[in-house]
């Protein structure tokens, strides 16, 4: 848990600039202990049975307002991995904020979906259950170690509509002879939104590292956009709150792809802030205000950034 007196000055300056009057609410929020969440895997059970079994075991839950299969565990979270139902794949431990990008992408059972940076598979398996195990998901990741986790999670969740690939996403558009209706691009990032579980000292990388990550993110988003069908939609997301990894990356796509259009995501019962249109004297396109910035004090989750992008004809 963070201590308000130990927040580094660089961290304070950055988030005061981003949040202005809301900064103190934000700091209060990140000084809380992290919350625990599970997703009930509807490929293995139904939501009612999943909740009843947790309650029967004395594990207290409260529903996540923006996703019917998501639950906050308010007590006895540590018992979950030792339950019979967890062993059977009924529950998937997934942070509440991480459930949001697939909801915004809204994959349908008739879709062919590309999950661009899929491992370890929280969002892949969530999309599979949203698609009722129908349609198809191509789940790509570059890391062998992370793909092993992805394979395990696909198996445990009972997913049959997914094929995994191990490729550098930046080259995928030249190697994959397909185009997709929906693409999720949940890129590698500094994870600066996980402010409750890790001290903020490590959350502001030096300029060289930050712009190195940004270059990878720009490459991944550009390559993913090439694989999108006309009129298809793409969700770009990070668990970072740094504008350099978020608005700056999406702005780069908008400036280089005239047929990329930002849309306002529609999601009920979720608090969020608009994307910013200027950072450190650099203006971004006004359309970026339609993106979602989710701060820890908005919904009592980790921080997230999400952009919904459509490819116009």
């Amino acid at each position, binding site marked *: 848990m963070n201590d308000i007196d130990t927040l580094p000055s660089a961290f304070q300056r950055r988030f005061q600039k981003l949040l202005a009057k809301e900064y103190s609410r934000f700091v209060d929020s990140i000084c809380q202990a992290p919350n625990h969440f599970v997703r009930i895997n509807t*490929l*293995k059970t139904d939501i009612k049975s999943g909740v009843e079994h947790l309650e029967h075991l004395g594990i207290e839950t409260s529903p996540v307002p923006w996703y019917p299969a998501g639950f906050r565990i308010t007590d006895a979270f*540590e*018992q979950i*991995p*030792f339950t*019979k139902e967890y*062993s*059977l*794949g009924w529950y998937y431990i997934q942070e509440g904020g991480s459930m949001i990008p697939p909801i915004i992408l809204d994959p349908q059972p*008739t879709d*062919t979906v590309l999950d661009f940076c899929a491992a370890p598979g929280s969002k892949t398996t969530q999309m599979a259950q949203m698609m009722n*195990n*129908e*349609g*198809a*998901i*191509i789940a790509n990741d570059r890391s*062998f170690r992370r*793909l*092993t986790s*992805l*394979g*395990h999670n*696909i*198996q*445990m969740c*009972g*997913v*049959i*509509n*997914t*094929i*995994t*690939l*191990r*490729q550098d996403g930046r080259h995928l558009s030249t*190697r*994959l*002879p*397909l185009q997709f209706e929906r693409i999720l691009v949940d890129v590698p990032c500094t994870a600066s939104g996980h402010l409750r579980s890790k001290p903020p000292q490590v959350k502001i990388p030096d300029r060289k590292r930050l712009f190195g990550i940004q270059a990878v993110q720009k490459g991944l988003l550009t390559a993913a956009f090439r694989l999108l069908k006309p009129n298809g939609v793409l969700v770009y997301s990070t668990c970072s709150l740094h504008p350099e990894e978020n608005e700056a990356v999406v702005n780069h796509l908008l400036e280089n792809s005239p047929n990329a259009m930002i849309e306002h995501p529609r999601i009920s019962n979720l608090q969020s802030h608009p994307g910013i249109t200027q950072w450190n004297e650099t203006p971004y396109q006004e359309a970026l205000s339609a993106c979602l910035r989710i701060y820890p004090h908005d919904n009592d989750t980790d921080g997230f950034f999400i952009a919904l992008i459509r490819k116009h004809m």
Partner: protein
Amino acid sequence: MSQRKSLTIDSQREAQVWQHLFEQFGIPRIPGYRFLKSGRKRIRLISEMAFNILGNLPYTGTTGLYVGEYSPTAFRLSMDGAHILGPYATKQIVKLTDEQAEVWLQGESVNYEDEQRGYVIVIHNDTILGCGSLSEGKLRSFIPKIRRLKSP
């Protein structure tokens, strides 16, 4: 992980697998479900749409769900294979008590007297736990080590 072409099985062989599942467990052919071969005996289950895409992919990693091992004499369902195909089964089903289920999920064999023999789908309180092997009054557990029930 080496990138490899997924091993599809020809429609005749696929029909044989379905026929075997029907004869062994009473599981009928399920529309929208297709089988793939993985290795000599392993069978994976994949959605129809993903199956149709496979031909367009020059390379793949894990494809679909590992549902069991098939030999000319029997089909041994995996834990998750039993979860997805088990609800369609009409025979080779055994039901465990609370105590038996607890022990069996820890990977241990339990005493179980029954006329059935061979691979069975194991149920506890209407929930499918997995697939076991029944012989000489013992029900063997095939729960993978990583999925076994552990004490806190």
